């Protein structure tokens, strides 16, 4: 019979003869697209934080020379790089300041929704039984309930403000995530390695967070990044319905909604904030995609 040590040498597969893995950051850094994404995110934050130093104008200053005599907004030009809005305010300034609101909505509200959805989905998918079906019935109920109506009612019952809006968005936006995570978790918890963990005596929390959650990361990334656009626009819808962030506070979404009927007369009013939303969501998606690959051990060694 063979001796253990010999087998050890012969059994190493050629493809696994690799040096120890570099850190997540190092590997992320090797990806050009991820870097572009990170740069765009950094730029957005920079713009939001340093807005007062980046523009000579005030976000709410309705300038006399910001409108034509007929009351039309100014197109992009030397004085106003991205043009002015219908009240003669500088659009660039408003987009910079608006990033603050939109980042809070797109990241915080969306993030909270993602966390709630994930927690509910993962719990329901793992525990089945009474807790599971109770949570899923709640999800079904929430799904059948028009989110917009709930948002309108909640926001109307409370006084509208940025944080209320964020809260409302978080309460209505977790549903789809929960549903999808639930399905995924149900099938994951049937996998054998979960049974294996149970025989090791692992507690539920450990199984949920150490073993199931990491497998959900790709899905969470997809929903999280697409959710950025959705929530930013939902905030705008709410503002448009008068239950959102109150004017004159700018947000990317409400700049679009305020001006969307003018998109032919003054396309810049819709184009630039829309571009900002797409870029933000895309940037997070680029980083997310890369992160997903980097975190997935089966993808190691595949980076350029």
């Amino acid at each position, binding site marked *: 019979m063979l001796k253990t040590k010999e087998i050890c040498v012969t059994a190493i597969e050629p493809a696994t003869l690799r040096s120890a893995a570099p850190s997540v950051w190092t590997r992320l850094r090797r990806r050009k697209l991820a870097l572009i994404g990170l740069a765009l995110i950094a730029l957005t934050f920079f713009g939001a934080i340093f807005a007062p130093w980046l523009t000579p104008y005030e976000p709410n200053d309705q300038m006399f020379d910001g409108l034509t005599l007929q009351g039309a907004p100014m197109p992009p030009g030397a004085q106003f790089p991205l043009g002015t809005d219908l009240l003669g305010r500088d659009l660039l300034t408003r987009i910079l300041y608006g990033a603050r609101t939109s980042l809070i909505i797109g990241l915080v509200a969306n993030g909270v929704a993602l966390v709630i959805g994930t927690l509910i989905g993962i719990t329901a998918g793992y525990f089945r039984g009474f807790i599971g079906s109770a949570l899923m019935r709640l999800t*079904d109920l929430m799904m*059948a309930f028009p989110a917009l109506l*709930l948002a*309108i009612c909640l926001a109307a*019952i409370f006084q509208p403000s940025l944080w209320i809006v964020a809260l409302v968005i978080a309460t209505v936006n977790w*549903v789809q995530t929960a549903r999808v995570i639930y399905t995924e978790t149900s099938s994951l918890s049937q996998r054998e390695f979960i049974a294996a963990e149970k025989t090791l005596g692992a507690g539920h929390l450990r199984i949920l967070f150490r073993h199931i959650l990491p497998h959900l990361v790709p899905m969470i990334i*997809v929903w999280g990044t697409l959710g950025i*656009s959705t929530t930013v626009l939902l905030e705008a819808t709410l503002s448009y319905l008068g239950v959102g962030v109150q004017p004159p506070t700018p947000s990317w979404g409400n700049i679009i909604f305020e001006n969307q009927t003018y998109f032919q007369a003054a396309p810049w009013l819709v184009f630039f904030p829309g571009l900002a939303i797409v870029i933000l*969501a895309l940037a997070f998606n680029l980083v997310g995609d890369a992160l997903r690959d980097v975190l997935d051990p089966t993808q190691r060694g595949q980076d350029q």
Partner: protein
Amino acid sequence: MINFLGRRLLQSAMILLGVSFITFALLYLLPSDPVRQIAGRSATAQTVANIREQLGLDQPFIVQYWRYLMDLLQFDLGRSYLQKTEVSALIAARLPATLLLMVGAISAELVLGLGMGIIAALRRGTTTDNTLMIASFIGVSAPQFVVGLLLLYVFAVQLGWFPIGGYGTFGHLVLPALTLGILGSGWYSRMMRSSMIDVLRQDFIRTAHAKGLSRARVLLRHALPNAILPVIAMIGIDIGIFMGGIVIVESVFGWPGIGQLAWQAIQRVDIPIIMGVTLVSACAIVLGNLVADIATLFADPRIKVR
């Protein structure tokens, strides 16, 4: 199957009950007085009190809800406060249009989204893939009002391919369905892409190739039916998402659906209409989920009806 349907219908009824209660409660808490709206500006206090009593709005919340529920059981959705018409008649007149739009939109998003997703999966990592990714994000981020008007302007006004809004023929349906579909297609393409990548890695694809099938056949007969399974479940969720977009799209295209009815009702706090539309849309969503489940059942023989 009968049992399965029975159980699902029972569950759905519970969900609808829940929706009706929550909506009723929220509308009750809403800080605006429907009676004042009905009575008009010149109304005397007496008139206001009379109307309040007639509508039963002076009753405690629970009594009001109970009455509503009892009427509901007889399929009576009440009468609009402001239009005085039966809510069921108003909804019935508009529902077919909305359903049609929904079907059109879902078809559009499936065709667009699945197409884009499949191509992206096949061309993974290439410029095509990246372009499609950007397109998905633009689709998800673009305001529907602008998309709708843009489509209308280009395809109806400039090119004259479609009528400028309205309802009736297939031509009328294309642009509004597309407007809604563009939003959903972003989601679908992202999901389809990852699902497709998973499926293409599987053994039976290799088997199919080993049989000497053409690439197209492997893709359409083997990969697609499997990759689409996780996507079907989304269609149920979708209907809920569309409910928001429908308000805008219907108004841009003059589409006579319930979105506009709902919108006006919300503006005017016409509670019976809001309740009715909410319940109908909840029905649609519940039904959509049911249809998605049944479709999954048919599409995936492994799932047993229990």
